[in-house]
């Protein structure tokens, strides 16, 4: 299966954005919308979500705690902290600036 690799750094943004939208989620739940919403254009190895979560945990942007799923299974739920929300805003505006700039360049050509 051919994958469109996502630009480096965007995975962070996607995770933060997903968490911001839905409150508490476990890993599998985070992985799904990323691909569904992007119509499977953005293909990520689902597992890379886990290494990507570690720096966020270290920085304190997200917290994790164990809970139970609807199917009554133990799962680790991640939640955005206020610091994480701030980080998301910063990354969003940064992202928009870059995308905006790229778009302008492309349209000008």
């Amino acid at each position, binding site marked *: 299966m051919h994958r469109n690799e996502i630009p480096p750094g965007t995975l962070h943004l996607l995770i933060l954005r997903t968490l911001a939208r839905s409150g508490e989620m476990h890993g599998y739940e985070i992985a799904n919308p990323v691909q569904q919403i992007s119509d499977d254009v953005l293909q990520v*190895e689902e*597992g890379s979500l886990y290494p990507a979560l570690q*720096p966020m945990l270290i920085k304190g942007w997200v917290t994790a705690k164990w809970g139970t799923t609807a199917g009554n*299974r133990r799962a680790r739920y991640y939640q955005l902290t206020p610091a994480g929300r701030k980080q998301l805003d910063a990354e969003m505006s940064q992202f928009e600036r870059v995308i905006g700039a790229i778009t302008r360049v492309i349209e000008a050509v």
Partner: protein
Amino acid sequence: MDWLRELARRLSMLVYRRQFDADLEEEVRLHLELRQQEQFESGMTANEAWAAARRRLGNATYLKEESRIAWGWEWLENLAQDVRYGARVLRKSPGFTAVAILTLALGIGANTAIFSVINGVLLSPLPYKNPKQLVVIKEHDSLPNVMDIQRQTRAFSQGGGINVEKMDYIGATEPVQVRVGLINAGFLETLGVQPILGRIISPGEDVQGGPRLAMVSNHFWQNCLGSDPHAGGTTIQLGGNSYTVIGVMPASFAPPAEHADVFVSLWVGDPGAAAERDVHIMHTYWRLKKGVTLAQAQADMAAIDRRLAEQYPADEKERKSQLVALQEWLVGDVRSALLVLFGAVGLVLLIACANFASLLMVRAVAGRQELVIRAALGAGRGRLIRKTLTESALLSVLGGAAGLLFARWGTSMLLALRPEKLARLSGIHMDTRVLLFVLVVSVLTGIVFGMAPVWIAARADVAEALKESGRSTTASTMGQNLRKILVISELAVALVLLVGAGLLIKGFSRLRSMNPGFHSANVMTMYVQLPATRYGEIPKQTQFRRELLSRLNSLPGVQAAMVTDIPLGGNYVGHRFVIDGRPPVAVGGEPEVQTLSVMGSYFHVMQIPLRAGREFTPLDRERQPLVAIVNEEMVREFFPHENPIGVRIRWAGGTEPPQWMTVIGVVGDVKHSGLNQPTDPAVYTPFSQNDEAWRRFMTLAIRARDASPGLVEEVKKQIWSLDGQIPVGDVHTMDELIAVSLAQERFNMLLLGLFAALALILAAVGIYGAMAYAVNQRRHEIGIRTALGAQRRDVLRLVLRDGAKIALFGIASGIAGALALTRLMASLLFEVKPTDPATFAGVAILLALVVLAACYVPARRAMHLDPMVALRYE
């Protein structure tokens, strides 16, 4: 503060990392199972669904690994793994491990022991307030001069002096001599000492006829006053007078160069000596004003000296006060010795390190195969180097730890051996600085000398090495050369140390065989001082002396005499004198000689030979013509061309009419101030013709067939039967006094000898290792040679030639090094040149023999090699 919380999170992960792994594991499993279920529901079979789930997840092991690495503890885990692995490897070859650790432990231990002495003596500040400002005047001075300097100085903010005298203290079980520091106001203030109880004397009390006040040392307070917190106000009996205790000194306080049990004002304790300008008895200490340099103070002092010389030409004409920084004055003599020892022990460490490196290299060559395979399997070069370094560092840290044990033992040995000059400086112990020193030395050793095998590892060319399958390759040949260089340097360094030790031993044996001028065997000495209160007049002193000697000489097998100051006892009195009939010399410019009063057959007891004339007889006594006996040095210096017998001399500046003494005899020279010191001209006079009432002291010299402890008790009994309140102190045999006077030289010699022996052993082990390894490497070659008809003799020659080449290079470079280095120790040598050819030759031969012996064992093994076995080996 964010980074702190972040660190806390990272640390908590480190602590709970097993939980972390389990959590991650569970999380990933859940993920896989949920995905599988979803795929299954969309119509796949269970197996297909599982495979799809795994494909979508990616490499689970890799992901978990990456997640863990994100927390930043990878290095620690690698290190722990390397250490565990290293420890396992070391445990598996206990012989190698033991030799490596022992080698390092010896080197590091010896270094640490010497460093703790240097740390205590040279590096630690003196225990006084702002010790850098303190200076000392090298020459003794009199109180009137000290007071003049205190008044006139523009360089010193404070100053004062001390003279320690023995006085009898009544109050203990038997009368004892205590050391009384006779001080003037300013002495304690200058050193900045605060009493722990009470106060120190004020300037107003430090005057002629002042109150009898005493400040006691902590030691005296504990032992004689029972640590009484209300000791202030109690009285103690010193030298026949009552003194009121007004203060107790802290335990950490002692005067810079001497011990004192009690401190009293010199004006009060010895008013006679205090008033005399020409009684130079005080050690004086001064504190430089802020911003004043030693040179400026010296210039100021010279000006004061000039004024005093003009004002008091009779006593102070030749004044020349030399200022020295206190620290330098205290450690000056031992500094050069300690630095030489530190240098020597550093060389020992170098040898140990060379051995260590070469041991590691043997292993590295042997273990190269393993490294190569690891490299082939994809281990990064950095990781491999780290693994090897970890092993070396592990060894060196273990070596350092073991070295610390050696050092503890070595330091206590040093303290037991230490000469008097070091004994005064307590504070020799392991402190953080010493521990830091050990840590740095051992880790550096591990890393620097652990690099050798790493270097070999780094050169490992995978394909090449696998192909050659362990035969000698470029890398191991280079290792072989490096090892040869190491062994050569070891031999060279060992030779330098051996030469140094050899020179010291030779100097010491010269010193030892110096004729002290007397015969020390079976002579016991004791110091007795008569209290001024009851023996102030000379006739009373003479009566006591005469009675005591007659009682002692009536003991069976005992021959007793007395002298003011015993040779090698550290003291003597000097007087200026005038020779009858010579052109007059300016007042104050007369020559000075050592003066000694004797009673009894002193020259017989000490077996000092009579060279001319006659000895004193009991008839040479008070109210008889004054007589004197001189030593040979006196004759050489002052009567080179005439017969001194019958010449008249007198002390300079005496009373009218002049008291002429007739020289009646000449005795042999005595090394009064030390075996390595020149003999001073000396004049002996009978005690009974003494006209100086302050000479109330005497040293008994007693020759007895058996100098048992019973004799000391017997002598004390005789003294106390005459006067029960006279303490007896400084009980030593003459042999002990000689030993003490040689202590510093013995210390230097023993230590350097020990280091040289260590160096020799380490170097022998080194060359043995190198040869044994070389023979092992050449087994194949030797086997072929033997198979082709080489005789055992040829094989022996083959191996020994290698050894001889190494020895020759080592000894040659060692001699060059020794020639360059031994000059540094010239000041420690007694009548031996630093380039003494006999020592150099002897040491070179010794080292050559040791190398030969070290080569012989592997050479024998090579000789008896069975060619079949050797050829089959590979």
